[in-house]
């Protein structure tokens, strides 16, 4: 199978479209008949990272590379970055504004959930230079 690469532009604060990229990826993997557990894990992680970009980050993109052995999602933004990544990874830590909490987000569960549902996760960020999250999912068998 050839490697498929797709990327989607994601816009800060755009709640009308937030999550569309992850839903596209989910439908793409479904149409390629990937294992349903893998599809769900990719969808959840992609969506968490996409929502983080929209709420906390800045304009950027979500890209996916699909091959027979693995799926890789990368979410990159040019937002404010994260000063203490270790702290941000802790469950319950959140700097979400009230406006986002009213939308049901901001429980500080997104990054830990990505960690839990991906096979490999790397997050690199510097204050002032944005955030880059890479998530890898291995296909079974």
């Amino acid at each position, binding site marked *: 199978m050839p490697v498929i690469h797709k990327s989607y532009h994601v816009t800060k604060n755009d709640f009308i479209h937030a*999550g569309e990229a992850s839903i596209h990826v989910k439908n793409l993997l479904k149409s390629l008949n990937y294992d349903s557990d893998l599809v769900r894990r990719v969808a959840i992680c992609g969506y968490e990272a996409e929502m983080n970009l929209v709420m906390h980050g800045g304009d950027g993109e979500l890209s996916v590379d699909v091959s027979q052995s693995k799926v890789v999602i990368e979410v990159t933004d040019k937002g404010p970055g994260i000063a203490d990544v270790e702290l941000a990874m802790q469950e319950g830590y959140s700097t979400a504004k009230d406006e986002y909490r009213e939308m*049901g987000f901001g429980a500080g569960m997104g990054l830990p959930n990505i960690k839990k549902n991906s096979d490999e996760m790397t997050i690199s960020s510097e204050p002032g230079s944005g955030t880059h999250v890479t998530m890898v999912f291995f296909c079974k068998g």
Partner: protein
Amino acid sequence: MKLSEIARILESEFLTGENKKDVDFHYCRGCDLMSDVLAAFADGSVFLTGLVTIQAVRTASISGAGAIVFVRNKKPSADIVALAREEDIPLLVTPLTMFVSCGRLYEGGLTGVNGNR
């Protein structure tokens, strides 16, 4: 429990997805916190929420929900209904509160998304 039965028990109306009224449901989740919804898969569950937003529908779709019920008669805007239709997820509105809706479905035999009762 068939979706048509869920609709009857909840005295609710379909906004979209009536074609799925014969689909069977075993699990239910009542939740307004999207962060919590994302923390546990819920393939083919009924998702009850008081949060009527585009993101509630997208979060439901990502988490595998098979139907969405907006409680306390909260009517979604046309774009929310359109998104549910596009995602092929039935959307219902009930006049009942979250508590009473959950109670009736529990009594009807549905379990939580982790299988607990």
